[in-house]
């Protein structure tokens, strides 16, 4: 065989030949043996339905639209839908979640004949408006949580205890009435609030 002389590799070539010792195999029969999952691993996200308040912070944070909120204003339901088939495992939802309901699990073996099998849905009941009886855009747990975390002074000062029981329309009407009473809005207060579209909001 021809001797190859290469200036900058001469020193390297003079190194010893690779040893041909039969090595210990590193391949494993993967699905048959369990793999190690480090605690940092980011797997399929899971929503704890007992802790979720349905605020939708995760939905806003999700860059891949794997999390969506579905509204059913007729029946007073708001669902947080998690679709791991779209998920990119970035973990933004986990960071955004105010209650720690959203967690990335260590699970990653998600092969399934039907992607729908992976979908998780957490349904929440919406509160009813005290005034008109329509459903508001807040879930019951959201309101509960809000009262839990807000200091009492703030709740009292803004009359939130009253306002949070109302739907957006009625709330606006109330505000307009108050403002009109204070003389800050001129004109017929009942004409002012825009009609908000019901249902189908997504």
């Amino acid at each position, binding site marked *: 065989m021809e001797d190859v002389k290469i200036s900058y590799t001469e020193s390297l070539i003079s190194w010893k030949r690779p040893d041909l010792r039969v*090595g*210990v195999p590193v391949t494993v029969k993967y699905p048959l043996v369990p793999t190690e999952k480090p605690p940092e691993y980011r797997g399929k996200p899971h929503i704890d339905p007992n802790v979720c308040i349905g605020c939708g912070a995760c939905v806003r944070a999700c860059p891949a639209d794997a999390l969506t909120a579905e509204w059913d204003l007729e029946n007073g339901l708001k669902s947080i839908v998690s679709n791991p088939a779209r998920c990119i495992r970035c973990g933004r939802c986990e960071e955004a979640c105010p209650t720690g309901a959203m967690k990335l699990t260590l699970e990653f073996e998600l092969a399934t004949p039907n992607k729908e099998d992976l979908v998780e849905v957490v349904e929440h009941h919406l509160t009813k408006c005290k005034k008109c009886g329509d459903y508001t855009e807040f879930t019951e747990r959201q309101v509960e949580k809000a009262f839990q975390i807000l200091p009492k002074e703030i709740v009292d000062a803004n009359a939130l205890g009253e306002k949070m029981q109302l739907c957006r329309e009625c709330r606006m009407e109330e505000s307009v009435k108050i403002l009109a009473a204070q003389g800050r809005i001129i004109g017929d207060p009942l004409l002012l609030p825009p009609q908000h579209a019901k249902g189908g909001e997504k």
Partner: protein
Amino acid sequence: MMKTMSISVLGIIVGVVLVAILPPFLDGIARKVKARIQYRVGPPILQTYYDLQKLFGLPSLRPTENKWFRVAPYLALASAFSAAFLLPYGKWVPVKFSGDIVVFFYVLAMVSVAIIIGAFSTQNAHSNIGGHREMMMVLSVEPILGVALGIFAFKAGTLSLSAIPLKVPASFSTVLAYLLLIYAAYAESGFVPFDIAEAETEIAGGVLVEYSGRLLGVLEYAILAKRLVLLWLLSTFLTIPILRGIALTGVVGGIVVLAVQLILVLVAYPLIAALEATNARYRIDQAVALNTRIFLLSLVVLAVAAVGW
């Protein structure tokens, strides 16, 4: 030339059984050895049987109407078997006649020729490039094999392949001829670094690229069989001259020789696998240049033999 043609039924049976069963097994060993060198577990030893079984069970897609495309794999396999029938198995030689060394040489080349025909019967450029490369390899390696066999025939004074190892004398030129034979058999078999015609990563399997299913199975089988034939030739030429005393002394002697031949093949194959695993592929021009140099060397050896050393 075919004045004294002899046929041994037992030899045919042994030959068929060995050539039919052994090649995939040897390939299985090679794959396992390579895997272990590469720190892998590797497939089961019988994997190549499973592969072939699967291929034989699948229909072949035909990319061309050219009938040579279909004929070529069978032609290659038939050629490999024909070559196998001219080799001695222990004391038994399936087919033997004066001048069969020439037939052996041609039949062996026919395996490659059939592959080349198959490769050129399609319009796939990969296949054509593979065919070109195979042709270059055949044209540059076969002369070396020819000269090596020629030296043996000349020294042994016979043109019968199976008789050569019984008669070949130990001399300087035969030792060199052995080296030439080893090189030629290795290169002709298409082991790395000479797997240029198939070059998976360059031309996607080259000569094999258009084949699928049963035809691919037959073709791969033919290639494996050809490797066994070349290795068996080598093992015969190494074994019988040493065991010349007992080779023809009856059934027991014959079986002993056969066993030694077999063991030699089984030992050589893992060594080849190790060599394959630690080498990169040549570019065709580099391989041809190397072959040409070796061929010129072989002519020198031939001259040495002619002088009488």
